[in-house]
């Protein structure tokens, strides 16, 4: 409720609301349409288009301005008033624009991609609903609302992953995704509750804003106490909202852990990342939007929102985990043959970067990378979609029994799909972080700041930037492998099925326009006019932390150069390896090799020294992922099932058994009483007299 709202602010607010609500409206309309209605696609697209425009206006107005915050009383519970409102600052405005900007091409693309589906309008219902949730998540100002949309995002992702619900794998995957996300949600919920218990408010602005409460409280003496030294001179009215009660410090850690859990689940960080590769069972366009660009970024966004909550140590933990995730996912990506899986692991890896960046304090870079990554990863997925679509086409045309996503069957598509090839190259280069792409800008920022951060810290922490560096080379390798396998060399399917017909092309404008749009966005100009210095990017400049160090040290020069040179080298290596194998029949693809006289030698070195260990590492990591982490999840599942069975057993035999034994007791008492009733009157008399007498004697004696 920071500043008084101006008239113009009111317009912005209403624009924002419109931008958020339009997809919802589209979703509702689509829900009411017949299942196969083709109008659905255009309704959704229109909605997101208008939304996009409105977001852009909002962005322009809000960017680098005073944050806008407006709220209305939602409900009162006890003495707590729960507000609902909109908080627009740089972060949310950026995301608002980003999400709608990414969603637009994906929508267009989808109209073609899903054209033949039986449940066309449902798809757009879900998609629009997702957009709504995501946009609302971005602008929500209260933790409760934030949580609500956080879950709704997960829910719409659930719907979309399981869109082809007759596919068992898809259904398994969406269940897994939802439950994993749910674990994160519980973390977030706990965190929210803890924060609420500590601060008695759900207001994000009041909590984490400029004069946010969180900044002034920290673990102290075992209490999550109020730190007087952090006390602001002009502390706001929020302080007077009820007496401050303090929780034990442990709850600060738990709150952070909960938030981390939420981040890990949404942004697929170790150890909750395994749902993301499986989620690739959904339509590819969905993967592009949700599982590459937007939803998975929500975790990073959350971190951005609650950044002040984290203490230094906690941030370090974040960095470690981000680094590890990045590294692990990259190694796994090395050996995958499923096109989308490679991209999925790459996404995990890149998200790891962002978390790492958050951890090392590169708040701006992290978000910068989030934005750039959104574009090029979305692009890559759409490319994958085209490729898969065409492979599917081949498969259906020739009645083949192949997996259209397997890159082993592809190759040489460069000719058939020229546009796709070009944009794919752009996307990959951006992903690798080659200069002139947006990826270079953001990634280098992260690396440089990571090194800067590790200065003056424990030696072990040097591993973090080192790992990040190494990961970026791995990235270069697997991306090259992917591109080479798909677009270079021969079309390997022909080897097995020489007679197949290939009627494939880049597809209609619905395919081309998004690809081009995104490819353009993946280049540097959108973000910075200076293609080499990340700190010159406008986005970064607005988000950078106050104590940001200017180009003062060596890292700023060495790292970009080192990274890129080695990356190029690695790319070449990959190219050499994967194209080389087919060189004999396709000489035109191997001219680099032929130029080198010691190609065999290199090959061997590559194979023995680099490729094999790396591949081995990748396999190991994948094995680890499948068996240990997933196994852990499965064993937890099995354990919970066992617990469930145990409780069921308990219920049936112990709790109910108690009841039955009560019944048996009643029966036995009854039987005892009945024993006297043997029909003999003298026996009755005898019992009566004896009982009376014995009782009398006892009574007298006692």
């Amino acid at each position, binding site marked *: 409720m920071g500043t008084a709202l101006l008239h113009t602010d009111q317009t912005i607010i209403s624009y924002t609301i419109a931008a958020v609500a339009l997809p919802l409206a589209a979703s509702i309309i689509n829900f009411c349409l017949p299942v196969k209605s083709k109008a659905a696609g255009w309704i959704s697209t229109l909605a997101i288009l208008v939304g996009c425009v409105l977001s852009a206006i909002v962005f322009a107005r809000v960017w680098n301005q005073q944050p806008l915050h407006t709220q209305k009383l939602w409900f009162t519970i006890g003495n707590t008033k729960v507000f609902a409102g909109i908080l627009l600052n740089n972060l949310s405005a950026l995301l608002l624009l980003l999400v709608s900007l990414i969603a637009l091409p994906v929508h267009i693309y989808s109209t073609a991609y899903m054209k033949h589906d039986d449940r066309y309008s449902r798809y757009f219902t879900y998609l629009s609903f997702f957009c709504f949730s995501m946009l609302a998540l971005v602008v929500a100002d209260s933790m409760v609302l934030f949580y609500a949309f956080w879950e709704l995002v997960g829910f719409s992702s659930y719907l979309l992953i399981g869109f082809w619900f007759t596919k068992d794998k898809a259904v398994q995957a969406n269940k897994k995704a939802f439950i994993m996300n749910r674990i994160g949600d519980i973390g977030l919920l706990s965190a929210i509750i803890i924060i609420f218990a500590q601060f008695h408010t759900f207001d994000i602005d009041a909590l984490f804003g400029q004069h946010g409460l969180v900044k002034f409280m920290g673990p102290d003496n075992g209490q999550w106490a109020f730190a007087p030294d952090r006390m602001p001179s002009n502390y706001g009215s929020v302080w007077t909202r009820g007496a401050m009660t303090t929780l034990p410090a442990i709850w600060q850690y738990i709150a952070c852990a909960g938030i981390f859990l939420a981040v890990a689940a949404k942004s697929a960080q170790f150890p909750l990342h395994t749902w993301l590769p499986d989620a690739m069972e959904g339509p590819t366009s969905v993967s592009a939007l949700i599982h590459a660009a937007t939803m998975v970024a929500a975790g990073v966004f959350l971190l951005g929102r609650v950044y002040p909550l984290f203490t230094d140590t906690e941030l370090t933990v974040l960095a470690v985990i981000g680094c590890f995730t990045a590294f692990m996912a990259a190694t796994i990506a090395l050996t995958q043959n499923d096109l989308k899986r490679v991209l999925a692991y790459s996404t995990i890896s890149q998200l790891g970067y962002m978390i790492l960046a958050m951890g090392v304090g590169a708040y701006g870079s992290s978000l910068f990378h989030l934005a750039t990554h959104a574009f090029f990863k979305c692009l890559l997925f759409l490319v994958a979609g085209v490729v898969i679509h065409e492979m599917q086409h081949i498969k259906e045309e020739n009645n083949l029994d192949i997996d259209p996503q397997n890159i082993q069957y592809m190759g040489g598509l460069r000719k058939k799909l020229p546009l796709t090839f070009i944009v794919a190259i752009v996307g990959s280069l951006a992903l690798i972080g080659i200069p002139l792409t947006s990826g270079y800008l953001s990634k280098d920022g992260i690396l440089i700041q990571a090194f800067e951060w590790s200065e003056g810290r424990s030696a072990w922490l040097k591993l973090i930037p080192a790992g990040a560096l190494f990961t970026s080379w791995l990235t270069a390798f697997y991306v090259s492998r992917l591109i080479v396998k798909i677009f270079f060399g021969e079309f390997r399917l022909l080897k097995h099925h020489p007679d197949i017909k290939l009627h494939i092309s880049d597809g209609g404008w619905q395919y081309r326009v998004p690809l081009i749009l995104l490819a353009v966005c993946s280049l540097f100009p959108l973000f910075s006019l200076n293609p080499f210095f990340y700190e010159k990017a406008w986005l970064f400049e607005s988000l950078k932390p106050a104590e940001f160090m200017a180009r003062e040290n060596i890292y700023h020069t060495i790292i970009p150069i080192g990274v890129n040179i080695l990356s190029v080298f690695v790319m070449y290596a990959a190219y050499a390896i994967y194209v080389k194998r087919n060189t004999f029949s396709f000489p035109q693809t191997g001219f680099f090799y032929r130029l080198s006289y010691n190609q065999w030698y290199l090959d061997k070195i590559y194979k023995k020294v680099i490729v094999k260990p790396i591949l081995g590492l990748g396999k190991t990591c994948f094995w680890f992922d499948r068996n240990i982490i997933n196994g852990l999840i499965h064993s937890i599942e099995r354990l919970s099932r066992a617990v469930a069975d145990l409780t069921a057993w308990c219920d049936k035999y112990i709790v109910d058994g108690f009841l039955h034994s009560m019944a048996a007791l*009643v*029966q036995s*008492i*009854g*039987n*005892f*009483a*009945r024993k*006297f*009733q043997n*029909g003999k*009157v*003298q026996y*009755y*008399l005898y*019992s*009566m*007299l004896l*009982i*009376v007498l014995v009782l*009398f004697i006892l*009574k*007298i004696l006692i």
Partner: protein
Amino acid sequence: MHDLLPHISAQLTNVFGSIPYFMPEIYLTGLFLVVLITDLIFGRRSVKLCKIIACTGLLLVLFKDLQQVALILDGDHVIFGSMLLLRRSAVFFKIIIDLLSFILLLNFTWDDKLKAHPKGLSDLYTISIASILGLHLMAMAINLLSVYLAIEMVSIASYLMVAYRSETALSTEAGLKYVLFGAASSAVMLYGISLLYGFSGSLDLLGIVARLPNVNPVSASFALVLVLIGIGFKLSFMPMHFWVPDVYQGAPTPVTAYLSTVPKIAAFALLVNVMPLFLFSADWKGIDFSIVLSAIGIVTMIAGNFAAVLQSNVKRMLAYSSIGHTGFALMAVVTFNLQGLSSLTYYLAVYALANIGALALASYFSNIVDAEEVEAYKGLGLKYPVASVCFVIILISLTGIPVTAGFTGKLFVFSAAYSAYEQTHSIWLLSLMITGAITTVVSLFYYLKIPLYLFLKRTENAEVASERSYNLLVLAIIISFLLVLLGIFPNSILKYL
């Protein structure tokens, strides 16, 4: 003789003065003679006539009872030279007894099996009128002689009624068991009375109470215990309850209804007349009979209710349940206060009403489908909905679930016990209450069996026997209506008690 001469006129004045307080009993005696003579003159064909006479006569008696309410306003009256004590509770007990007896007398001819008795029912009316006279005496007796006489009168009448259907084996068997058990109990009781008399030199209970403290307490207690056996036989509490299931099962159903209700009420009246005298005598050093009665109550509730769970014969089950109810009613007795007394009266009245209803319906089903065992009730609920619904209401009342009179009865007993507990903090009262609560749940086990078979079990044969026994049905409807009414407005009766 010369010693007595000066007293004779005073005695006679006392006798004549007592007569106004004795009108209902005089009418009953007259009624007895009229019925007897009708029976003798018209023989077997006189059933209807006897019934009409007996019932109208009983109404007259009831009227006289009601008139007595006015007589007791100025306090209790000891009449016939300390033989009887006419007091408020006695009058109410008498009214209840007569009212219920009226229903029961009506009921006799409605049971097909009893009606088919080849020797006719007119004798039964004669016997039962005499028995009612005995009950009246029992409710008022305050002298060992009148106590003994009243109990014997009721007992002998009961033996005869149980064995009445002399052509059937079960009835006779029940009669034999009853008479042997009863005669033995009364012999024991007489021995106790003789000791009591010997120890105190008086037959008058008040006199006994005054002098008994001078005797060795153990001896006095023993004599009292023996007397208690006699009363216990009528009340059928543990361990004097063994005869109950056999006799109730064997006796003709209307007789069972009779036995399980009115003598019990009268016996309770007797108990509340006799027992408090000993309890509140400050000099009494013998056994604490409130503890004895509490213990008996607990054991009786348990024995009756738990054993009933395993029964399959409806009448036998109701017999056990009546034992359980005795135990529960003892809870009201051991409070020994006015509230206890009125709650006891109410509880007994309601219990008796419900029990009569239940047995009337047992007769009803026995009449129309020859169902004695609960298994035979299978699926009858949908064929005879009205009767079955009444049965359910009546059983609910017996269990003590709202909104039936049984519930309010239970509630009043509990609250009486509670208020006594509040003053004494006696662990026995508490355990009585807890046992009462537990056995209520247990009682549900078996009471529910009947609705269970009536409604929940399905049966294949769909034929519906022609509905006869409208009388019983009407009776059951009236009773269940009354029970519900009393459940909602217990005030209407309770405020008088």
